[in-house]
């Protein structure tokens, strides 16, 4: 009798503690109304640290309210996966619109999300460039140079990383844009990915491999990431702008399902609107992203030299179509990258 009593007491206490803890944590993180979660791709860490500070100040001035913006960073696809699995992002700022569209397909974002913000939800755009060792010993100037001789290339995994996908698409597009056939493009990327010894899961990981672990002759990466590396490397690395590259479109979106649930819609909308203000546009340029507003971009031609950018539509119907064709299971990437046995 005594053991029955004790065991019931214990079980009951345990249950109470557990429930209290869980419900406590459910509404933790401060007040939901005053906190936003921005789920972003890998290299934008420094950018959003700065932007968030600015936004918090501006929001306080306009509405008199305190707000806190939390960040999560990782490979673009990994982040989309997390949001799908329940990470309660108020805002997603991912590397490819196809990643964001997955959320729309699953009902987390309105299907017309792209039209809700100016410039098809594109406050800034970017591109893919090369980083080489000091003196450019392998003389890499353009896309065809990447498959010359013994060049070894560092770029992330196209299955998981925005940078990875864009490197692939830029390489593919470079061939098509110059008049090559689809087969020629296929052969080119097959050759290219044979020379990649490591497939990191995100842009930052690839940077670590190239810079810290000192692997590879050239890194194919985001323009902003390349500049960041050059600054840190103090002369040991150089940036090379190929004559043509892809126009990357990291579109931004509000996650309707989450903001409705958390009651943060107004704040999230304010955040996204903020990204189009002059202040934010200048910050983009400062961190080597290309602001959508032409007049701001014109002021920074040294940092952001003009480059011939082709859009995704030069070789695919849309970002979604490209995702399906190249990166889905058994897509082009899978077929050229199978293990060798």
């Amino acid at each position, binding site marked *: 009798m005594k053991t029955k009593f*004790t065991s019931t007491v214990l079980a009951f206490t345990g249950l109470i503690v557990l429930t209290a803890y*869980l419900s406590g*944590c*459910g509404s*933790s993180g401060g007040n939901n109304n005053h906190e936003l979660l921005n789920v972003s791709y890998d290299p934008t860490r420094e950018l959003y640290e700065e932007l968030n500070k600015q936004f918090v100040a501006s929001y306080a001035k306009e509405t008199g309210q305190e707000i806190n913006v939390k960040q*999560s960073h990782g490979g673009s696809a990994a982040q989309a996966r*997390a949001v*799908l*699995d329940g990470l309660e992002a108020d805002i997603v700022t991912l590397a490819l619109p196809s990643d964001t569209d997955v959320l729309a397909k699953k009902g987390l974002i309105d299907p017309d999300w792209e039209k809700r913000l100016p410039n098809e939800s594109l406050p800034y755009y970017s591109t893919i460039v090369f980083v080489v060792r000091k003196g450019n010993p392998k003389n890499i100037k353009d896309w065809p140079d990447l498959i010359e001789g013994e060049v070894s290339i560092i770029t992330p995994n196209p299955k998981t990383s925005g940078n990875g996908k864009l490197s692939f698409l830029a390489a593919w597009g470079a061939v098509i844009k110059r008049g090559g056939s689809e087969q020629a493009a296929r052969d080119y990327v097959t050759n290219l990915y044979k020379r990649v010894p490591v497939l990191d899961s995100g842009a930052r*990981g690839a940077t670590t491999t190239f810079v810290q672990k000192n692997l590879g002759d050239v890194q194919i990466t985001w323009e902003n990431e390349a500049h960041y590396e050059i600054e840190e490397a103090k002369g040991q690395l150089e940036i090379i702008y190929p004559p043509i590259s892809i126009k990357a479109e990291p579109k931004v979106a509000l996650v309707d399902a989450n903001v409705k649930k958390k009651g943060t819609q107004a704040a999230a909308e304010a955040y996204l609107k903020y990204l189009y203000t002059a202040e934010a546009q200048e910050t983009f340029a400062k961190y080597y992203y290309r602001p959508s507003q032409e007049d701001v971009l014109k002021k920074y031609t040294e940092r952001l030299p003009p480059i011939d950018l082709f859009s995704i539509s030069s070789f695919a119907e849309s970002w979604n179509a490209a995702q399906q064709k190249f990166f889905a299971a058994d897509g082009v990437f899978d077929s050229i990258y199978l293990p060798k046995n």
Partner: protein
Amino acid sequence: MEPKPQEPAVLVPARSVRQDPWYVRWILISSALLLVVFLVLVPLINVFCQALADGPGVYWAYLIKDANTRHAIGLTLIVAPIAVIMNLVFGVAAAWAIARFRFKGRTLLVTLIDLPFSISPVVAGLLFIVLFGREGYLGPWLQAHDIKIIFATPGLILATAFVTLPFVARELIPVMEAIGPEEELAATSLGATGWQMFWKVTVPNIKWGILYGVILCNARAMGEFGAVNVVSGRIIGQTDTLPLRVEKLFQDKPSASYAVASVLTLLALVTIVLKAILESKTHSPSSDGPLQEVALRE
């Protein structure tokens, strides 16, 4: 007859009269030492060298000034102890059931307890996502009640508790089996109630085993990376534990990463020192009895 003089309570056999030839000895010893030096000691030293490469002042700054690192330290200090306590209670209960009783399915239970030890952490994390994720079995119910498990602290605790589940139990089962139930039987037959027997007889006997298991469990809990990585959501300043912070810093600022890594390494060193002390205590003649040292060797 005289009682047998108490031998030192150590089971190491006396040195053999015929030693191995000295050159054999020295070859073996030096190869062993070299292995340990290159595999263990040098990496250990490397952590601290890299951490202090920028100077001790900067090292301190990385640990204390960075709010996100401070938060990671705090988060780890919440998540790990809770997981350890959960597994401690479980470990004692399981060891009692398994060591003292025989029942159908006992071996299966032991195998199941060991399972988390050999599951890849990625798979472990996936287990929880399939259950608690938005698209998981319990997802909609959790969403409706605004209970956050994964991508929040409870998920971190669950993942950590899962991967460190076997440690205390696996430590206590052989201990309790080796000690044997005689004392407890004696206590019960003398009229002690269950709880009296537990606190006054069982616990003192297994206290070193408990301590040992808790130390190992804690070391693993504080250092867990894989499973936590999958369920954490990587929210900076919110769901980044110390090992996750090490990875993030490695990508952003390697010397800061080493600073944080050195904290975890110090913790590991403290763990093995404590373990060594515990072992020497149980081998000393003043320990609780001849049965102890049989039990406490893994």
